[in-house]
């Protein structure tokens, strides 16, 4: 293991990207992502890396500028959060449809209104169907590792799709953690310069982002869908290469003490660590509980989730967002739908919790495991909301 440094996770995310030989960054500051924006600007202004920092006037412009930069062959990076991500919404599916490997960090924060700057996943969920590869991090080290890996995944010739790394706002971005960085030389070996499939260049005019009529549009959607689904293979391959080079193992779906568990909880993002502590405590008390952690949200790792929950009696699916007026939390509705066709499937409880920065403690997770024992089934339920 290399030398560890104490560093705030947002700063570390920017430092990780600085190792990635990016050409262009366009980052508009927004809480709780601001430290990434500020530090990225510092790194480029100080000449530590040879890249352009575009001081855009909005997130809509940030992602649009990067679509252009990426089309011209650049390795392009941005970071945002909440309302900023919402403002990018229009351009996100265009970037993926154009097969541009732009990489982004999203410091997850609740969406207005009411105005709230704290953590939940209501910002990324409306972007779910944008065709981006969507990864979730659980701690600062993962924010570093996945930020670096995201470029390699996105730029793989089999993938050529944008990638967003979700880092829970405040809960992760503002934590100071002991972190380990790979060296510049190691990253350069792992992540060679981008070799674009095609690029805009005056010497060889090509068209990107073309028009498609009803006779063609459906074929383009299918092509993008296949590319996104196919990217799971590459994500797994890049995770394996990372483990070989840097010793830290990642899986698209992680399990923790799940083997003989009769009750499993499925989490995404930073709550996984707290839930793991709850599992440890309950295991000490003889309860057969375990954890499934979703690292890859899109493409949805169907087979891996099925394998991870096979054999458990009860599955508690945690959602830090809700599909308003719908069937429950977005994670749970997907999990339920992939298990619908299974002969043996667990009873599924969907718990909506941790909204707008509401803390989830170890005790809360223990409570949720207990609720699963007693309560009669509801399609979903809010946890910790005052009745």
């Amino acid at each position, binding site marked *: 293991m290399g030398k560890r440094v104490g560093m705030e996770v947002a700063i570390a995310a920017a430092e990780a990207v600085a190792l990635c030989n990016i050409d262009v960054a366009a980052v508009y500051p927004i809480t709780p992502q601001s430290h990434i924006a500020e530090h990225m600007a510092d790194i480029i202004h100080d000449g530590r890396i040879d890249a352009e920092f575009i001081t855009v006037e909005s997130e809509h412009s940030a992602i649009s500028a990067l679509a252009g930069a990426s089309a011209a062959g650049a390795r392009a990076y941005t970071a945002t959060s909440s309302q900023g991500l919402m403002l990018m919404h229009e351009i996100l599916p265009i970037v993926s449809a*154009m097969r*541009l490997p732009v990489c982004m960090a999203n410091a997850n924060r609740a969406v207005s209104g009411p105005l709230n700057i704290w953590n939940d996943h209501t910002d990324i969920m409306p972007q779910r169907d944008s065709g981006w590869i969507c990864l979730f991090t659980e701690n600062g080290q993962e924010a570093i590792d996945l930020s670096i890996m995201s470029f390699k995944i996105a730029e793989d010739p089999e993938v050529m799709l944008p990638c967003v790394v979700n880092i829970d706002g405040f809960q992760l971005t503002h934590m100071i953690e002991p972190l380990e960085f790979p060296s510049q030389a190691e990253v350069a070996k792992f992540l060679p310069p981008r070799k674009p499939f095609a690029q805009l260049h005056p010497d*060889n*005019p*090509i068209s990107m982002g073309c028009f498609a009529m009803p006779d063609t549009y459906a*074929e*383009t959607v299918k092509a993008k869908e*296949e590319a996104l689904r196919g990217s799971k293979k590459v994500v797994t391959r890049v995770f394996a290469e990372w483990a070989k080079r840097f010793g830290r193992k990642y899986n698209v779906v992680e399990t923790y003490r799940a083997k003989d568990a009769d009750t499993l909880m499925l989490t995404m993002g930073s709550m996984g660590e707290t839930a793991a502590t709850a599992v440890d405590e309950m295991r000490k008390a003889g309860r057969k509980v375990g954890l499934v952690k979703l690292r890859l949200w899109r493409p949805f790792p169907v087979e891996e989730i099925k394998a991870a929950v096979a054999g458990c009696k009860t599955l508690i699916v945690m959602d830090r967002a809700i599909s308003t007026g719908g069937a429950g939390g977005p994670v749970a509705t997907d999990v339920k739908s992939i298990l619908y066709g299974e002969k043996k499937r667990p009873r599924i409880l969907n718990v909506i919790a941790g909204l707008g920065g509401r803390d989830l403690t170890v005790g809360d997770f223990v409570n949720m495991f207990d609720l699963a024992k007693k309560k009669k089934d509801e399609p979903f339920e809010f946890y910790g909301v005052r009745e």
Partner: protein
Amino acid sequence: MAKKKTEQKKWPEKWHELNPGCMVFAAGNAANYKTGSWKSQHPVWDNSKCIKCGICYIFCPEGCIQETQDGFYEANLDYCKGCGICAHECWPGAIVMREEEE
């Protein structure tokens, strides 16, 4: 830096034969994509009323109206979207829009 010339396939095709991101590698081939297929009406000229002012030619948003050898105008229906602007702008009333079925 310029990318080597990548082969341009015909268009449209099966989903797996599309270029990634629907990129088009040959310049100036927009003409190959016949965009007039979705119109519900098309313009018909009555040259006996036409005074050859060229207004229809100027106003057509698709640029698909051409001048003929004898100075009249006609639309290339492969690209005409049937918007009717030419008929609306033609003040001597030389153009009428007809349903596609007619």
